[in-house]
């Protein structure tokens, strides 16, 4: 089977990927790291002929009540035009306010008011890109008492109203579910399967919050067993999608990312094969 899973392209691996051209489903870059004219952008352009790309933005701040930053939006749109990636995505979160950028995926209350803000921002983003953009479920460390919708219900309604895609991150589901005392399998119920365009997988850490464990989405280790198990459940329910291994802190040798991507391909393959066997038995 050809690899479906890809890896996040990180600067320590750039030269090696350029030299070795390893087989991988696709490469994903963070938009905000390629908006200037640095040699990294030229390296990516050289790889563009051999790899499918995904552009993952982290700073569009789609949940911002102030709306989108026009200058930043234009820069990301220009990069998308230049690289013509297979996917474009950002998160269900906000990160700017009052002209300041916090460099973190800050949480939203899941209310009708917030939904209208995000629908408006995603619509403006998709108009600027001239294409569908996928929105990723974030890792949450808190919930707001005033939320009236669950996170998956909010995302489903966002898809319905804006026509965006969903980037489903099972690691973020595990992190959020643990931190907010939810059941990760319940979280999957009712999602619009047809809108799901991509999966993300990454490692998380366990920290201490006033004597209690809290999971932190640090992208600094291998994917955990619990996340692999939920990923298999996701593939069983929604089918195979391009799947990404993300690693952003304590970045290991390239081979480790490729191993994790191969494991993701293996999970997809065995889950689909088991599904086929079940279907054959039922017939």
């Amino acid at each position: 089977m050809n690899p479906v899973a890809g890896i996040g392209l990180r600067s320590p691996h750039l030269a090696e990927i350029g030299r070795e051209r390893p087989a991988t489903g696709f490469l994903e870059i963070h938009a905000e790291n390629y908006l200037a004219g640095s040699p990294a952008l030229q390296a990516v352009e050289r790889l563009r002929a051999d790899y499918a790309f995904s552009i993952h933005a982290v700073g569009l701040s789609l949940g911002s009540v102030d709306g989108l930053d026009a200058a930043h939006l234009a820069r990301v749109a220009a990069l998308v035009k230049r690289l013509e990636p297979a996917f474009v995505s950002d998160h269900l979160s906000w990160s700017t306010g009052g002209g300041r950028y916090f460099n973190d995926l800050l949480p939203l209350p899941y209310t009708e008011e917030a939904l209208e803000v995000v629908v408006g921002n995603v619509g403006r983003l998709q108009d600027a890109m001239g294409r569908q953009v996928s929105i990723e479920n974030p890792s949450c460390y808190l919930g707001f008492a005033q939320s009236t919708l669950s996170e998956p219900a909010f995302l489903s309604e966002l898809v319905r109203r804006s026509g965006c895609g969903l980037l489903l991150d099972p690691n973020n589901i595990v992190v959020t579910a643990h931190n907010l005392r939810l059941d990760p399998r319940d979280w999957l119920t009712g999602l619009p399967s047809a809108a799901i365009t991509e999966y993300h997988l990454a490692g998380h850490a366990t920290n201490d919050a006033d004597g209690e464990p809290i999971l932190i989405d640090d992208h600094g280790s291998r994917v955990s067993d619990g996340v692999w198990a939920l990923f298999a459940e996701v593939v069983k329910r929604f089918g195979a999608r391009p799947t990404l291994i993300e690693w952003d802190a304590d970045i290991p040798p390239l081979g480790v990312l490729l191993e994790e991507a191969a494991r993701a391909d293996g999970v997809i393959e065995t889950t689909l094969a088991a599904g086929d066997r079940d279907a054959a038995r039922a017939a």
Partner: protein
Amino acid sequence: MPLALRDLQAAFAAHIVGADRADLVAAVAGDTIPAAARLGVYRHQVFESLGTALAATFPTVQALVGTAFFRGLARAFVRHALPQQPVLAEYGGDFPAFVAGYEAARDLPYLADVARLDWALNVAFQAQLGERLQVTDLSLLPAERLPSTSISWAAGVVLVSSPYPLDRIWEASQPGAASDAVDLNLGGSNLLVLRRSDDAFFVSLSAGEAAFMAALARGMSLEQSAGAAFEADPDFELSTSFARLLAWGAFAALQ
């Protein structure tokens, strides 16, 4: 009472970089992990991630002061000035000035200039590899017009002048440097920072060359700029220095 989204985001922003906001804490669903501790995760991540970004942009400063001191310095700067946009390579232009006024670094008077050098290397690295003046461009110009012509700097070129030997300090703080002892009485430095195909680098200029480049940057003609260079450095030799600067790719185009 639920907070309007605008008020909630303003309270969140104020909470992250300032004191705890009671209205925000009350809006967070707390349980055995209190709301304030949950909010603390975000506050920690904002400061840590921006500190990591500053360390990537100012590696020589961090090498000189160590990671623990740098973390405190970065926290103070983040509190002083958050990024105004999401491209982190463009965050920290005010950091050298902040370092200059940072009380705990008063014993390291050269640290702010080192920060300026790190920032210049970052600016050069992020610059477009744009137009460069070639020898052939000069030959196309009638000789009598040359003295009154000015020349623009290539994109990303920065001149960093300091009363300290910045090049020696930079070399000594590189990983694997033979020695980390630098005689601060070696005198000042004029470093020209430039972008080349795969990275950014700097070269050491004479006082005359630095004055020459500075005059060109002010839009002065070649003749006027050479005059400024002779004034700064009687040993300045125009043809030798001009050839050096041209070969490094310091110039963009004739003006």
